[in-house]
């Protein structure tokens, strides 16, 4: 299907595959398997695949647990387009959304011993760009093949 990613990602229109899965963590594994297979077929290296798997897992977990609040009647929509040059993945839940900029820094001294709050940071570190829609219930993960594999956390979150 033809999709229009958020304009700040400057991706234009994309022909993306779509999967809709029930809102549980086991079902959330199905898109991951398909996307990882596409990454391998397109020749992504081990470090890139590690980072994309981690980012996707964090996005899916956030959607199931926080976005849809574990509600089994809700669904997760995943869209993806994997080419040799770039991986673009969107994960959307049916929740009210959130403000990602308000999530506290999990590496600060006062938060370092909190069990939660590291998922968004990891997505930002391993992806070239991370972008949310205006209400925050749709996250876009972009990994440029040319981007160095070593993660960096500076300036990766693009305002939605």
């Amino acid at each position, binding site marked *: 299907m033809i999709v229009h990613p958020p304009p700040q990602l400057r991706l234009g229109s994309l022909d993306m595959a779509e999967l809709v899965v029930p809102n549980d*963590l086991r079902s959330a594994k199905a898109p991951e398997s398909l996307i990882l297979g596409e990454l391998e077929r397109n020749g992504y290296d081990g470090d890139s695949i590690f980072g994309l798997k981690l980012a996707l*897992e964090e996005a899916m977990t956030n959607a199931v647990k926080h976005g849809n609040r574990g509600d089994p009647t809700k669904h997760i929509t995943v869209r993806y387009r994997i080419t040799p040059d770039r991986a673009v993945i969107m994960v959307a839940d049916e929740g009210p959304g959130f403000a990602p900029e308000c999530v506290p820094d999990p590496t600060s001294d006062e938060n*370092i011993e*909190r*069990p*939660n709050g590291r998922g968004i*940071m*990891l997505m930002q570190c391993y992806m070239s760009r991370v972008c949310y829609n205006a209400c925050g219930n749709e996250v876009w993960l972009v990994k440029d093949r040319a981007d160095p594999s070593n*993660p960096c956390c500076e300036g990766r979150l693009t305002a939605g």
Partner: protein
Amino acid sequence: MEQPSSHLKIRHADGVAQVEFADRKILEELSIQEIGDELDRLVEGTAGIRLLLNFRNVDHLSSAALGMLVTLNKKVKERNGELRLSDINRQIFEVFKITKLNRLFEIHDTAEQALAGFSRR
């Protein structure tokens, strides 16, 4: 002495509980709660536990696993125990560095190095 466990291989030797994960993908979200519960039982059953988690079988983990480890570390400290991690591969160690949890946990390259530190106590 080795005890059977669904997610963990636990070996008690020289006053240290040495734990390995039974599956490479065990630290994924689906299993985290169960693994955390197993480790909790281990910690609660041994006052002042000296616990070594060996990551040599683990090739992936998520923030949920990190959260479980943070909670476990607090529980071990509260009970005057000591937790060490070892044999963490390069990709996973990068996750610890990004989240700065390499400063919170005592991480050793190998189980032998971690055990040597325990024995000096």
